[in-house]
């Protein structure tokens, strides 16, 4: 094992420029793909944050008797996906409105009657935050006899989600393309190394070296290149992230922009994937060019 490792390191050193180019290419692929991933996790966070604010307001018909309120509330509560239901009386709503419009409260003063209806404010469970589900729940509530109208003005969120999904798909496609490109680059490097070592490989075979003995160093080499490329790519992303996020946090003290880096599981996964790229590139090359 130690000799394999030694020979792999020797190969990388002997083909310094080639190895460096390979590692940098892998690093760039990883950087681009993981930058996409980083963008998506954060965009996803922001979407979820907004999604949490999605509420349905259900306005009661003005003639609804007060003693029916608990029944209506229970009925809404019974709908699948509803987390909690909060009664907002028209007095309460009026008070809130006045608070929101302090400066212009004189407008409200002139009203001799409260024009607002009684309402229920409904929050959804986490799993029912999506646009379609909200719409489904809203329709159910609207169909209740004592409800006059529902409001959940989040259609734009839904549209945004669709665009977002499209981007995500593009992200996966790009990830796939970069994966293949990286595999190809590693395969090509290993192929060139095999070519420069063909005399040696031929002689090793003649003196009875096993295929494992001959091939292992190439695999180690491929995996080292993949791993280094992965680590460098993630490190570059991390540095860029730190630079950008510190400047962003300085200029906006904004709750929404609580951006974060990829989770350790995720970037370790990416590095593992990069190791696999190294292995696979090597496998393809050896299959093709080192037939016994």
């Amino acid at each position, binding site marked *: 094992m130690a*000799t394999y490792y030694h020979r792999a390191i020797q190969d990388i050193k002997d083909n310094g420029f080639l190895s460096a180019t390979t590692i940098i290419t892998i690093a760039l692929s990883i950087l681009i793909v993981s930058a996409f991933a980083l963008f998506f996790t954060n965009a996803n966070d922001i979407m979820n944050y907004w999604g949490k604010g999605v509420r349905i307001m259900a306005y009661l018909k003005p003639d609804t008797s007060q003693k029916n309120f608990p029944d209506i509330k229970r009925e809404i509560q019974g709908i699948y996906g509803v987390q909690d239901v909060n009664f907002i009386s028209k007095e309460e709503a009026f008070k809130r409105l006045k608070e929101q419009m302090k400066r212009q409260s004189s407008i409200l003063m002139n009203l001799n009657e409260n024009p607002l209806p009684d309402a229920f404010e409904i929050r959804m469970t986490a799993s029912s935050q999506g646009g379609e589900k909200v719409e489904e729940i809203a329709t159910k509530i609207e169909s209740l006899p004592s409800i006059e109208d529902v409001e959940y003005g989040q259609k734009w969120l839904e549209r945004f989600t669709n665009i977002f999904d499209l981007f995500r798909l593009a992200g996966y496609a790009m990830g796939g393309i970069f994966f293949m490109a990286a595999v190809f680059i590693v395969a090509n490097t290993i192929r060139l190394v095999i070519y420069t070592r063909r005399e040696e490989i031929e002689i090793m*075979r*003649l003196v009875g*070296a096993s295929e494992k003995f001959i091939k292992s160093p190439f695999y180690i080499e491929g995996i080292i290149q993949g791993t280094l490329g992965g680590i460098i790519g993630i490190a570059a992303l991390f540095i860029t992230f730190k630079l950008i996020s510190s400047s962003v946090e300085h200029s906006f003290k904004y709750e929404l922009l609580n951006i974060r880096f990829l989770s350790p599981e995720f970037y370790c996964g990416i590095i593992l994937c990069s190791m696999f790229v190294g292995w696979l590139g090597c496998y393809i090359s050896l299959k093709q060019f080192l037939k016994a």
Partner: protein
Amino acid sequence: MIGGKDKSSIIQMFHVHKHYGSKKALIDITLNVSKNDFLFISGPSGAGKSTLLKLLYLGEPVSEGQVLVDGMNLSRISRKRIPPLRRKFGIIFQDYKLISTKTVFDNVALVLEASGKKKKFIEKKVKSVLRTVGIEQRINALPPSLSGGEQQRVAVARAVVGSPKIILADEPTGSLDSDSADIILNLLKGFHTHGGTVIVATHDKELIRKSGERILYLKQGRLLGPTPI
């Protein structure tokens, strides 16, 4: 001696033919080599001496006939068994086949590394073998910087270092003066005395005369027996 069964056989060939395309390099060779034999194969250039040796370690596949080496039938052997077959041999190639980018030490050590020996052992063993062939002062040299004779000695060192059962030597003294040739011959004889089997392909009549061992002649791919016709 052909087909002799007094000692147990280590190599047997039955009606072996070898052709390279339409070129017939070996024709109907039947031959038996017993354990601890010391055999010379001689004959003019192009007679098929190197080809015969190549068939034994599967450097070339047999075209027709059967070859048995130490109980292995080479026509039935799986790919995985080829390395163990080759490790039975220590081979001195006619063109040496040294790795030009590796030092003398590494070239010889390769055999032991390939059979999974410990580093300490390899270091000791390689140095001692290089001393025996008289090339220890060039231990860190690269083969292209060595003279033909020096390269040949490295090739001999590599052939013996792994303590093989059989040594195949293809013109092992081809580039050597007679004193150096004697060193190599004595080395092969020493290996033989310790129970090894040796096959030497050569047209060096001096070498054959000095050794006084069994000899087979090849001519145009045919085995002529112990005397040239």
